[in-house]
């Protein structure tokens, strides 16, 4: 009755090595990006709402406040600018923030529906799977950002042409940071219903207590406390990193903060999803255990 594994040469042709080659790692990453992109394209409403949200801010909010909020010359701008121009980097970061939280929402959904297990029982290292998922989420956010920038361009709102390319590394870094934050949050959320709290306690405070809608010097004049909160908010630095990159400049402080937070959040997410240490294991969640 017993047969040995040596009887199955076809299996060995597929699984011949103990370790994975770089090509197989790339195949795994490609597969995860492909799946996330397909899901995004299938959910047209998600794509549309991801665009409508910043466009409403840009065309309605910014137009309404155009005469109220004057913009003095502050770096990286070298001349007076329209308010719509000022809030564009903030809206780009907002797209990435919402996308990061949306990814986190889909992770909670996947965990509840069981899809998450498909990913977690892959033989690749778990840290690699989570990083791949982060990269996939970031790729999806880039699609949204460039679609937004394209539409804004028709209204003559946008950076110099070179800025579209130069901002790419900043967008990747900010996308990773906000995606990793979402992933970390998803590990702490037990049920999909609890996700509304993320809107109230994460997205809105992060967005409004930042330089997305108003320069920090103005905030400082009205409330020094709020100014310091904004200064410590990593989202502020994501906005500034994008703002400077759009105008071919580097804000080194923001780069350091965003880079540091990215590493911190990724490590936190990896720990949270680690089977021997993570929150999910302690709660006995992924198995639906009995």
């Amino acid at each position, binding site marked *: *009755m017993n047969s040995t594994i040596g009887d199955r040469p076809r*299996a060995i042709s*597929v699984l011949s090595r103990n370790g994975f080659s770089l090509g197989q790692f790339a195949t795994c990453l490609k597969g995860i990006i*492909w799946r996330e992109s397909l899901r995004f394209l299938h959910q047209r409403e998600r794509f549309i709402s991801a665009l409508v949200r910043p466009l409403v801010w840009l065309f309605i909010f910014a137009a309404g406040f155009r005469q109220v909020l004057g913009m003095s010359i502050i770096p990286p701008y070298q001349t007076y600018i329209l308010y719509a121009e000022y809030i564009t980097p903030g809206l780009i970061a907002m797209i990435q923030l919402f996308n990061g939280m949306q990814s986190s929402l889909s992770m909670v959904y996947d965990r509840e529906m*069981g899809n998450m297990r*498909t990913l977690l*029982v892959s033989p690749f290292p778990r840290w690699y799977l989570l990083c791949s998922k982060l990269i996939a989420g970031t790729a999806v956010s880039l699609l949204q950002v460039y679609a937004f920038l394209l539409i804004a361009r028709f209204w003559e709102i946008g950076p110099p042409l070179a800025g579209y390319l130069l901002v790419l590394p900043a967008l990747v870094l900010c996308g990773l940071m906000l995606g990793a934050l979402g992933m970390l949050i998803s590990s702490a959320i037990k049920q999909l219903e609890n996700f509304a709290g993320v809107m109230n306690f994460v997205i809105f405070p992060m967005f409004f207590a930042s330089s997305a809608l108003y320069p920090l010097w103005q905030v400082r004049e009205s409330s020094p406390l709020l100014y310091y909160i904004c200064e410590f908010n990593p989202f502020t630095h994501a906005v500034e990193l994008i703002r400077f990159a759009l105008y071919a400049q580097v804000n080194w402080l923001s780069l350091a903060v965003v880079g540091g937070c990215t590493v911190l959040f990724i490590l936190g997410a990896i720990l949270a999803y680690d*089977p021997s240490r993570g929150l999910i294991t302690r709660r006995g969640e992924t198995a*639906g255990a009995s």
Partner: protein
Amino acid sequence: MTTPMLSVEAVSHAYGERRALDNVTFAVEPATFAVLLGLNGAGKSTLFALITRLYATQHGRIRIFGHDVERASGEALRILGVVFQSRTLDLDLSVMQNLMYHAALHGVRNREAQRLAHEVLVRMALKDRAHDKVRNLSGGLMRRIEIARALLHRPRLLVLDEPTVGLDVNSRADILTYVRRLIAEDGVSVLWATHLIDEVGENDHLIVLHQGHVLADSPLPRVLADCGATSVLDAFARLTRSEHLMSKAE
């Protein structure tokens, strides 16, 4: 002496104060159909989570064809095919897209993945469903696709956690027959967790798990002989000391 496809050695697991598994030990030999029989809450899903490394092993050791699930999880997981109790297919993707995603998660490159997916769909008589959206399929078909997906990367050990739950009698019989055939044709080992006594075959290796303890771990004829039972239900009732089941068996 052959290396067991799966060996579970003195495994214990607790959720806080609640002990789900207590010193669980058994082995599944190559090309064997092993049934893990237990009532709901026996600890089957916890054991599955440990075998698939969704959870880390707190006490004891689990090896898949000699590879320690904790220390060499990559080697262990790549020869393992898993079908979970709840459905884990992506409903918004097609059957083929689900298979291709699974292949990528095992590092199988596109062309080879397409070949393997095609092959497995033909074997499971699902070829004409390749481009259907999973959401539009019946429960029985989804289960078959999950089994096809678990087999795609040619695992040596297939573990299935209550795969026939919620299916009609015909679908249950089809799936059971197909999985049993895999052992004869491919030499795959199977660990089939269930609470349905009629799924135990007369020559199956039977592992009875009850309240986190293994009460029997032998081929069915020996389990029956050891218990002095005439049927699986009778043996299960005697082992678990269930008066309710004993009266049913009589």
